[in-house]
């Protein structure tokens, strides 16, 4: 059967599964819509969190980025997993004890301030929209490449599916579809990884295989790849090109940003008890690690395969996948010296006589995971499976984000903000309407992506790191932290981070290089400095302003111990 036929079958089956699960688990109350009635088992929550967290970026882009950046790509591996340690140790158990529905709920109640709530709502909505646009784009790419439908139609189909289960099912529907989506995406990621590992190193475990011996040359695979990089004028794969301080700050911003992302945090509201919240972070990280430890192996296999397939080979003899991807514009070849042979080289490439060699091939790093099975000549059903996995990753994350947007509107802005008298039924309708509206906006952004989608991702993490993380940590670990400190800290953190990113990404992109950056920190890593600024300002201001009212100290005491989960929310509610 052809690739397209397999893709239709596998994608169709997976979609039918999601819809079935959604119908079975639809929500009947606001509690079910926002937090799945707090009845989710820790294991299921771990899987759902993993699917929620692993987006199109993790599934489609990450191994490709690592493949092109080598050691520098480690920032994503450490950054997007290390945040879970912070979540488990510093946030999840206390937020579960507090027992709210949303992140702005906690910020608003702990800091007894509508201003704090509104600042948090604005951040939550901005961060989530940034993210969701990228997911819809991922859906569009997969559809257009594998099912040969226009990107627009692909986005419409994706919107329809997400609309169906996010709007009907709320958090309950999302949680159980995410469990199914995790199973699809991890299977789809590991099958080709195992195939590739066997093919290249003879070891069935990719995590071990990429440290093993290359079947073709008999040398260690990483040594062979470093040699190839040297010959072609690229930086050695296992050492990086970025400065140590930049690697440090980007990793920290991604870690802290992960721990501050609202769609991740709210997942830990859905389990019955505090100890379930703790252990479900552990399960989540195990499920995430299955993909994240395989990704660097896939990156090495993809890089080796790519260099062997294209470098110094005649253009006329390129395999079918090369021309198919050329059709999408994601691979382009420009034969500058007119010899009909592909020169794919790095900036330091030289001929034996010392003359520089020009690079003739441009490859979009986002296609590496999707093209990998074709490059290695794996069976057609594997290619269809990868398409279904990419869609599962994008849809599961999109649904989680849409829920954050919808609850920010119906719960934080209406119920806790401007319309406190709204009925349970009214709030549920408002939640569904705003989820529906958010799906449409996300779809629009997916079809007409603003040119700066990649740029604004730095925003999402930077802002989450510089706003929520310090406010929540201080709210739990410092009884003295008050409204004034928290609000000014958040505002300072956001303003500083946003100004730095906007300056280098939009106002003066020409200056976006290590010489102009403060202390050599790139816009991707500046959220770390924003976070430190937030902490410093919050701690200073709180010392010179009145302490919080006594019931806040009581609330903090309550959230610090697991017993009595019902009581904590009643004090503020």
């Amino acid at each position: 059967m052809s690739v397209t036929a397999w893709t239709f079958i596998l994608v169709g089956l997976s979609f039918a599964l999601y819809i079935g699960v959604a119908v079975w688990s639809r929500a009947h109350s606001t509690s079910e819509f926002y937090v799945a009635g707090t009845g989710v088992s820790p294991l299921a929550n771990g899987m759902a969190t993993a699917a929620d967290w692993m987006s199109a970026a993790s599934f489609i882009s990450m191994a490709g980025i690592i493949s092109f950046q080598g050691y520098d790509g480690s920032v994503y591996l450490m950054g997007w997993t290390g945040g879970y340690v912070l979540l488990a140790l510093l946030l999840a158990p206390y937020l579960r004890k507090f027992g709210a529905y949303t992140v702005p709920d906690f910020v608003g109640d702990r800091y007894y301030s509508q201003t704090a709530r509104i600042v948090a709502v604005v951040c939550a909505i901005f961060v989530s929209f940034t993210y969701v646009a990228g997911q819809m784009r991922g859906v569009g790419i997969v559809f257009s490449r594998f099912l040969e439908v226009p990107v627009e139609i692909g986005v419409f189909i994706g919107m329809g599916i997400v609309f169906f289960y996010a709007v009907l099912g709320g958090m309950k529907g999302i949680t159980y579809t995410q469990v199914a989506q995790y199973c699809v995406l991890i299977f789809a990621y590991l099958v080709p990884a195992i195939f590739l590992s066997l093919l290249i190193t003879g070891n069935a475990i990719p995590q071990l295989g990429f440290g093993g011996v290359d079947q073709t040359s008999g040398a260690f695979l990483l040594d062979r790849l470093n040699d190839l990089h040297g010959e072609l004028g690229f930086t050695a794969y296992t050492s990086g090109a970025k400065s140590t301080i930049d690697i440090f700050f980007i990793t920290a911003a991604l870690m802290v940003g992960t721990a501050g992302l609202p769609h991740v945090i709210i997942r830990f509201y859905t389990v019955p008890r505090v100890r379930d919240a703790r252990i479900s972070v552990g399960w989540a990280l195990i499920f995430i690690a299955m993909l994240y430890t395989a990704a660097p192996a896939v990156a090495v296999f993809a890089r080796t395969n790519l260099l062997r397939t294209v470098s110094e080979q005649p253009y006329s003899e390129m395999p079918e996948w090369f021309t198919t991807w050329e059709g999408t514009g994601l691979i382009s070849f420009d034969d500058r010296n007119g010899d009909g042979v592909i020169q794919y080289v790095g900036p330091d490439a030289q001929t034996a006589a010392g003359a520089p060699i020009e690079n003739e091939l441009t490859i979009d790093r986002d296609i590496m995971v999707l093209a990998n099975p074709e490059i290695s000549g794996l069976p057609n059903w594997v290619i269809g499976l990868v398409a279904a996995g990419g869609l599962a990753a994008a849809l599961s994350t999109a649904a989680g984000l849409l829920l954050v947007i919808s609850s920010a509107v119906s719960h934080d802005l209406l119920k806790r903000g401007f319309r406190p008298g709204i009925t349970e039924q009214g709030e549920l309708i408002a939640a569904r309407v705003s989820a529906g509206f958010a799906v449409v906006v996300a779809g629009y952004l997916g079809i007409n992506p603003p040119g700066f989608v990649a740029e604004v991702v730095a925003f999402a993490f930077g802002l989450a790191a510089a706003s929520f993380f310090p406010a929540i940590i201080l709210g739990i670990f410092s009884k003295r932290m008050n409204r004034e400190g928290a609000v000014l800290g958040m505002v300072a953190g956001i303003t500083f981070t946003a100004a730095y990113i906007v300056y280098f990404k939009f106002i003066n992109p020409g200056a976006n290089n290590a010489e102009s950056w403060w202390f050599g920190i790139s816009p991707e890593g500046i959220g770390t400095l924003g976070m430190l600024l937030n902490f410093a300002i919050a701690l200073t201001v709180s010392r010179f302003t009145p302490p919080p009212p006594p019931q806040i100290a009581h609330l903090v005491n309550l959230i610090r111990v697991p017993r009595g989960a019902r009581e904590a929310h009643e004090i503020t509610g």
Partner: protein
Amino acid sequence: MTHPPDRPAVSNEGYWRRNLTYVGILLVIWFAISYGAGILFVEPLNRIRLPGTGFPLGFWFAQQGSVYVFVVLIFVYVYLMNRLDREFGVDEEDE
């Protein structure tokens, strides 16, 4: 429910101090493995091979080892805290 949920928590200070100690120790390990071995000392560590493999040690910590250690840290914390909850009688067994 056999205990009323609002039973006075006399020993919460001790509970919280022990919790902070656990968190502090685990975060030191978290930092040492990722930022230490994976970033700050990656170059000297890269001169050593993970025995029997082609992995330079610093590179391995950055792309594999740190993730494994993160998982272990969380489960150690879960174990320690469940034990501490029972010791101070603030667990949720009967809720």
